């Protein structure tokens, strides 16, 4: 799965992925759960299924999503709430 994310460094690969995501996933011999997590943009599931954050973030960037958006997803906040928490000094109590 990380190999797929890594491949998205190339402009041409990003285009191919966006043109047919399911077909692109098939090239990397992923499990069904991994495929489903990617197609459904289930970011927590990608982490749980072995994705590393720096790799997963490549997909998020392609979608125009920020690390702060992902931070919100992982902690059950909206992006705005997560940003506000960071502006207030970050989550110091976890």
């Amino acid at each position, binding site marked *: 799965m990380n190999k797929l994310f890594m491949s998205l460094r190339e402009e041409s690969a990003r285009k191919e992925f966006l043109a047919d995501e399911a077909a692109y996933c098939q090239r990397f011999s992923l499990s069904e759960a991994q495929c489903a997590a990617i197609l459904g943009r289930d970011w927590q599931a990608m982490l749980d299924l072995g994705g590393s954050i720096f790799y997963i973030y490549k997909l998020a960037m392609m979608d125009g999503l920020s690390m702060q958006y992902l931070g919100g997803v992982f*902690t059950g906040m909206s992006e705005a709430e997560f940003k506000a928490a960071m502006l207030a000094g*970050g989550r110091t109590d976890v």
Partner: protein
Amino acid sequence: MSEVIWGLATSHVPSIGAAMDRGMTADPVWAPLFEGYRPARDWLAQNRPDVAILVYNDHANGVDFDIVPTFAIGTAEKYQVADEGFGRRPVPHIEGDPDFSFHILHHLMDENFDLTVFSELDVDHGFTVPLSVWTPEPGDAWPCPVIPIMVNVIRYPQPTAARCYALGQALGRAIAGYDGVRTVGILGTGGMSHQLAGARAGFINPTFDHMFLEAIEKDPQKLAELSREEYIREAGSEGIELIMWLVMRGAMNAQVRKVHSVYHVPASNTAAGLALFDNRPA
């Protein structure tokens, strides 16, 4: 005989680079950080070294997913800026110094550091953001050639803090024994406290960060004794990047003089820090 004239420790958060690339440095969110950088940048502009050594980590951009070097050095004449998935940052490529790289490589190998050697390498924000913190307007070229030293901080098991500090000390001896340049600047990058993924995402620990900023100057040995687990618990899973500051510090004298330091929250999801030290006797 070459001499380390300064050491610069700085976070390398991609959004610091993005704020600069998009002209957002006067934005209220960013202004305190960039105002804080100013005294360091002014001093650095007056103290240009012949060559710089930049200790950083790659974030799955320059190195393939299936290979993780613990410590690596670049020996290239030139390093290109990596495309991290949104095109290359609009900054100059980096000139290297292969002769100095090979000298350092030989010396470190003979001190029993098992380096991986990159004869070609694209460098990502972990490398270019610190260069931008140092030199916001490089024009066509960075102030001097730069040699990359790469440390694995993103996949367990990372090298221990003690091993990083020992690498820095050996690097200092390698630099002292080199005749090809006179003055060297060294950059340690990453940190400060942050965690990107999981339930602790957004974690910031200002108490630990302030302790670290103080100890990196006055008592680096104390920081070298912390375990991987302590770094991750106290600074977050990505805050362990701070071990790279110890490589820089190890290459410097026991006594250094602080020129300037800054601490700011947040830079994106991260606590950002900068510390600049003069390595020359007063």
